[in-house]
């Protein structure tokens, strides 16, 4: 699968992306066309190759739900779901995601139709300032999928058994999402409530 899509991506790159100045990295921008699906909508952009996936979404598609906290993968505020997996949008280049399916907080729910985990965060007071919340919720939705898929964590006791939704599992798996307001115990409560909600399976 990979070979053909890689060749297609190479063919789609303009010549300038393939032939730049020699020597160590320079200052003149090198641009390329990038195309991916964001929250169900196909988007095409001509961007500087240096553009992170986070900046492509925030600065160019004006999807500002995903936040830039540290820009170094330490805080998790930029967490988004790419091809079903949560990743740090700040630590990956947009050009590396040709053809990807990307879901941000804007794709999970809207003010009129909240995702059940968004509703659970409100009910359980899972935030104070709200800056980390989009990343927490994208991460939280993916965490519960990871547990259901049987992916183990550092908190999993027996590696040969399927992990369960426990407070220890949630806390360990959410350690890549920092909350400076310290709403952690309410975030755990919101996720526990969401995990116990039968409707969460089809909503995730």
């Amino acid at each position, binding site marked *: 699968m*990979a*070979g053909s*899509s*890689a*060749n297609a*991506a*190479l063919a789609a*790159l303009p010549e*300038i*992306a*393939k*032939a*730049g*100045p*020699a*020597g*160590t*990295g*320079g*200052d*003149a*921008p*090198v641009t*390329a066309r990038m195309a991916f699906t964001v929250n169900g909508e196909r988007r095409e952009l001509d961007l*500087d*190759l*240096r553009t*992170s996936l986070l900046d492509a979404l925030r600065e160019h598609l004006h999807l500002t739900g995903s936040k830039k906290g540290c*820009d*170094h*993968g330490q805080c*998790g505020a930029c*967490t988004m779901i790419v091809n079903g*997996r*949560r*990743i*740090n949008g700040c*630590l*990956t*280049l947009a*050009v*590396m995601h040709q053809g990807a399916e990307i879901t941000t907080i804007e794709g999970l729910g809207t003010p009129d139709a909240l995702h059940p985990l968004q509703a659970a965060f409100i009910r359980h007071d899972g935030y104070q300032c709200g800056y980390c919340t989009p990343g927490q919720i994208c*991460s939280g939705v*993916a*965490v519960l999928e*990871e547990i259901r*898929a*049987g*992916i*183990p*964590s*550092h908190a*999993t006791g027996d*590696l*040969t058994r399927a992990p369960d939704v426990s407070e220890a599992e949630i*806390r*360990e*798996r959410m*350690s*890549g999402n920092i909350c400076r307001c310290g709403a952690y115990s309410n975030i755990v409560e919101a996720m526990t409530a969401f995990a116990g909600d039968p409707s969460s399976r089809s909503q995730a």
Partner: protein
Amino acid sequence: MKSFTYERPGSPAEAAAAVARRPHAKFIAGGTNLLDLMKLQIETPAHLVDVNGLGLDRIEDTPEGGLRIGALVRNTDLAADERVRRDYGVLARALLAGATGQLRNQATTAGNLLQRTRCPYFYDTAQACNKRRPGSGCAALDGVSRQLAVIGGSEACIATHPSDMAVAMRVLDATVETIDAAGAARTIPISELHRLPGDEPERDTTLEPDELITAVTLPKPLGGAQVYRKVRDRASYAFALVSVAAVVQPDGTGRVAFGGLAHKPWRVEAAEGELPRGAKATAEAALAGAHPTPDNAFKLALAERTLGAALKQARA
């Protein structure tokens, strides 16, 4: 970040050739470490060769009864693989002790091996660092060295290798397969992949610049009790002060490697004969010749105690 050009080759050999063809070219896989370093202009490649999508993302059984792990298998997928969880518990545990869920979803097997040190003086471009700028000196030697190496360092560098996974790979005697620009493949024992700093700390590994890791192979399972024990400043998402990867057989013999102590995963096979005599004898033999700083001398006692805890866990 400095500007660069970018390409996606169609095969591993083409990727190696693409890096050889261009000055200051680098492979990019998960990118979680390289992009971080590019933002800080610690790394300034002029050209990136994207090795995602080359079909190097499979885990296969080997005829010898082991596993061949594609270089691009993500850390999450490796830790979740049923065979790894059942037969190579020390590897699954080491992977899960590292980074975060988000990072493990991106980070790859080869990229994990090739990640750079997290020495604070390497990261601070205002400081002298022989690894970042050869010949500039080492600010860590007289600096804050609590996290840094206690053994195997040099006057030029006391950085540590930050990987948890690599420590488990070392205790399992993994081998690394590579391909170069000429299409030539070679196999490198994991013990010979990472270097000690000596007077060339800028070279982390014995790989050539155009050499691409294609796979990491594990020999057939060792059995025994497999433990990865990591001590860090917080319960999750922190690099090791000390870690221990141990495989212990019912008769008390076994293997042990340490993380957080040196420029490479630290394993001394000759010291493993002491394992039936316990943690103190083993740690003393494995860490003979250590040169800690006043800041990090605690790691020697901590290594012995962590090994003691790991052996106790293995016997439980």
